[in-house]
């Protein structure tokens, strides 16, 4: 019997541990992912609720209304056409065509299904028509409208302006756009697609920020590294070429190689780093992470884990090949440089107000993680300032303010006649205006032209408009 008791104690403890384990897992996953499950587009109960509940309204950071339900139960959108279009994918539509829009992702909040028990009980007792919660976004409607109006016509792409100290998304603009208030008309191709969050682009030279960080943190003596660029260098069975094409960069140090965006130099760096160090730094910056932010559905950026050849390693270091990144993530990377190496979690919701008028959730800034040391960030910041003062991004200059940035001209095809995607990522090194920006213009050639100009315009307007 004694032996039996001992065995029973053992199995009993095991059984209770299993219960604790299942309970813990249940609590943890429900707490962390429950809202995400409930917001899924497979949640048919939301569509039902939309018929019986007055959907809450959506406003911008200053309370400017972006979407609301009128007396007839009709969903209405901002009367300012520019704003309405600029934020179309961000606000979303009632048909959930734009899958990441607030009206889809936060549907359960807007129809009050995630509201407080008190609110629900009150509505139940008073017999009032159930009303969902109101959401105030962090976006600035006017800024978004202006950015969209300055978007070069005929191009597609995305612009994201964020506050790099708080992570707030100020202007998410994805082109082409659509009119959520008039879904019957034909909509341009891919207009429902929010390029800021869902567009996985080849980063091109903007990825050199990450390669530079890897070099500074892993290669001793990186700062005094000297390079010789003859316009092209063989790596394994492939060659990395500089896009300036006709003329070689010649002798350069790390600083000028970054400012002039020399591919040969950075391919050399990534070759010297090796794939493990580069992958480690890229993953520290958030590549290959399934971002599970509470406010936005941000598609994962990727850096190849199984680089097969030396030439792929070299090309990965200059942001080509299988490296992919979203515009918002790129803005977060620039923001992390500005913010002393700490990347902030992106925030889209400023406040949620219950139907009884009581605020239920106020956003508090949170760090995603420290992605590099403060000293690395400050060196990269200096180098990015050079890019704008004398390097490839001089068009991003703003009179009276310090702009730091990096250009990119990402090849998307082996066919050289296809124009590259133009990138510019950067930020204002100003204590009062902590804004970072990422611009991608599809097939717009070199990043130093249209993209840099648009980024400067966006930052300028942010200084002007965001309070």
């Amino acid at each position, binding site marked *: *019997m004694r*032996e*039996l*008791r*001992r*065995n*029973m*104690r053992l*199995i*009993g403890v095991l*059984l*209770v541990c*299993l*219960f*604790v384990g*299942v*309970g813990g*897992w*249940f*609590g943890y*996953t*429900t*707490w962390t*992912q*429950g*809202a*995400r*499950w*409930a*917001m*899924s587009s*497979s*949640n*048919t*109960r939301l569509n*039902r*609720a939309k018929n019986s509940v007055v959907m809450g309204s959506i406003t911008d950071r200053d309370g400017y209304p972006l979407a609301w339900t009128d007396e007839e139960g009709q969903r209405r959108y901002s009367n300012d056409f520019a704003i309405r279009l600029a934020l179309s994918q961000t606000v979303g539509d009632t048909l959930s065509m734009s899958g990441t829009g607030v009206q889809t992702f936060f549907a*359960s909040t807007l129809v009050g*299904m*995630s509201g407080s*028990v008190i609110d*629900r*009980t009150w509505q*139940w007792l008073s017999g009032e028509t159930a009303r969902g919660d109101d959401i105030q976004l962090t976006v600035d409607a006017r800024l978004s409208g202006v950015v969209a109006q300055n978007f070069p016509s005929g191009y597609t792409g995305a612009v994201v302006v964020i506050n790099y100290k708080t992570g707030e998304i100020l202007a998410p603009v994805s082109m082409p756009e659509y009119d959520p208030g008039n879904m019957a008309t034909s909509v341009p191709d891919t207009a429902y697609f929010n390029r800021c969050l869902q567009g996985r682009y080849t980063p091109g030279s903007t990825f050199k920020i990450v390669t530079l960080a890897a070099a500074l943190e892993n290669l001793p003596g990186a700062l005094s590294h000297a390079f010789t660029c003859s316009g092209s260098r063989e790596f394994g069975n492939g060659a990395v070429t500089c896009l300036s094409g006709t003329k070689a960069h010649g002798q350069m140090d790390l600083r000028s190689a970054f400012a002039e965006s020399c591919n040969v130099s950075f391919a050399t760096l990534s070759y010297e780093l090796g794939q493990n160090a580069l992958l480690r730094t890229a993953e520290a910056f958030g590549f290959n992470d399934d971002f599970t932010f509470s406010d936005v559905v941000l598609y994962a950026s990727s850096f190849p884990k199984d680089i097969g050849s030396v030439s792929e390693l070299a090309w990965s270091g200059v942001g080509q090949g299988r490296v992919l990144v979203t515009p918002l993530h790129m803005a977060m990377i620039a923001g992390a440089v500005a913010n002393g190496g700490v990347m902030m979690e992106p925030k889209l919701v400023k406040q949620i107000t219950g139907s009884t008028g009581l605020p239920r959730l106020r956003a508090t800034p949170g760090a995603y993680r420290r992605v590099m040391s403060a000293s690395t960030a400050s060196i990269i910041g200096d180098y990015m300032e050079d890019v704008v003062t004398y390097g490839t991004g001089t068009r991003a200059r703003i009179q009276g303010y310090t702009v730091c940035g990096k250009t990119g001209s990402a090849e998307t095809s082996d066919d050289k006649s296809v124009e590259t995607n133009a990138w510019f990522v950067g930020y204002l090194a100003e204590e009062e205006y902590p804004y970072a920006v990422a611009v991608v213009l599809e097939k717009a050639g070199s990043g130093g032209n249209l993209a840099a100009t648009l980024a400067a315009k966006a930052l300028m307007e942010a200084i002007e408009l965001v309070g």
Partner: protein
Amino acid sequence: MTRKTGETDALRKALRRADTSLLLSAVTLFQASAMLLLTLRTQPIDIQSLLLAFAMPAVTLLCVKGLSKFWKIDRVVLTLVLFLCSVSVVTLTAISRASVTPLTQALYIAAGLVGLVAGILFIRLLRHWNRWKILFMVLSVGFIALPLAIGETKFGAKNWITVVPDLVTIQPSEFVKISLMVVLAACLSERQSRAMMVLSILFGAALCGVLLLERDLGALLLYFLTTVILFFLATSNGWLSLAGLGAGAAGAVGAYFLFDLVKERVSIWRNPWADAADSGYQLIQSLIAIGSGGLLGMGLGLGMPRMIPLYHSDFVFAAICEQFGMVFALCLLAVYALIILRGISIAMSCRDGFHALLAFGIVTILGLQTLLIVGGNIRLIPLTGVTLPFIASGGSSMVSCLTGVGMLLGISSLNADRDEDDVRRASWQEGECG
């Protein structure tokens, strides 16, 4: 002398049973208030719910007070089990489409309570039933194999038989579960007899074989695990038990390649979102319901749990999460754990190997069943079609689980009787010395 008196006092103190009146009041309050709330939900008021609002607390009080008047049963276990049963009725009232579902469930519980009393009597009266165990084995195998001959296929498993068409269907595997416990406990507690031990394992294996033929893989898993655990408890033979578990794991891998059903369940579990509209639909709707419930739930009678397929049986846990929220669901898990702890302590205080093994076996099977189905609902493990004890709608499961609890209670009353005898004898000796 004084030392001895102190000992007897301590014994007496230990004997005075825990005061369960607070627990009992809380449970009856829950039953009455929840059902009254549901009564007022519709206009005109729901008479059936109103009746249940009075009937459920009454039956609970009657059971706990009445049964403990006859026998010194463990009242905490009984009260908690009745609480779980009432959660079942309340949930089904709140979410069912037809008002007949909660009513049938209440009738099943009533039938189960008869089974519970039968379980107590079985333990207390049949002291020499040991001789019948071969017959028991044959009958069990015969009974569980019955669906193969005259059964129906439901959800890919052929494990049901119809007694009265469209009215009474039973699932033999639920009942045989209890007899498996009894037979295993009886054979394994005879430690000298190696033949008996082998026979009992063969019996377990035979049942598992039949379940395999019926494709009732959830029950198979349950039977298998309990058999291995009881074998380990009785023999302390860790290596052989681990070898058994290893063989089971190999069998599971084999089942994965052999049965499309298993393959599908596993692939759904790995990524339900891949096919959200079709194969992953059930699980995703379950997760959505759990997510919609959040911390405190949508509220009783609110929300849309009927969106979950099988919301009253396989996914009742998800439906409860939507209605009552995560906090309540965690409490529910804690109640199961409490019943199990209580059951383990009953098993530990047995002086007889058969009763100890039987009590522990019943607790184990209830615990594993809960873990398997809850784990399946929350995507911790692939879904297996076992029932959530005392809560999922269905008569077979309810009756068999309550019968099992009855046996557990019977064993606890035997323990209490024996302890009382000890005290009486001790104080009598004391008196003699004095």
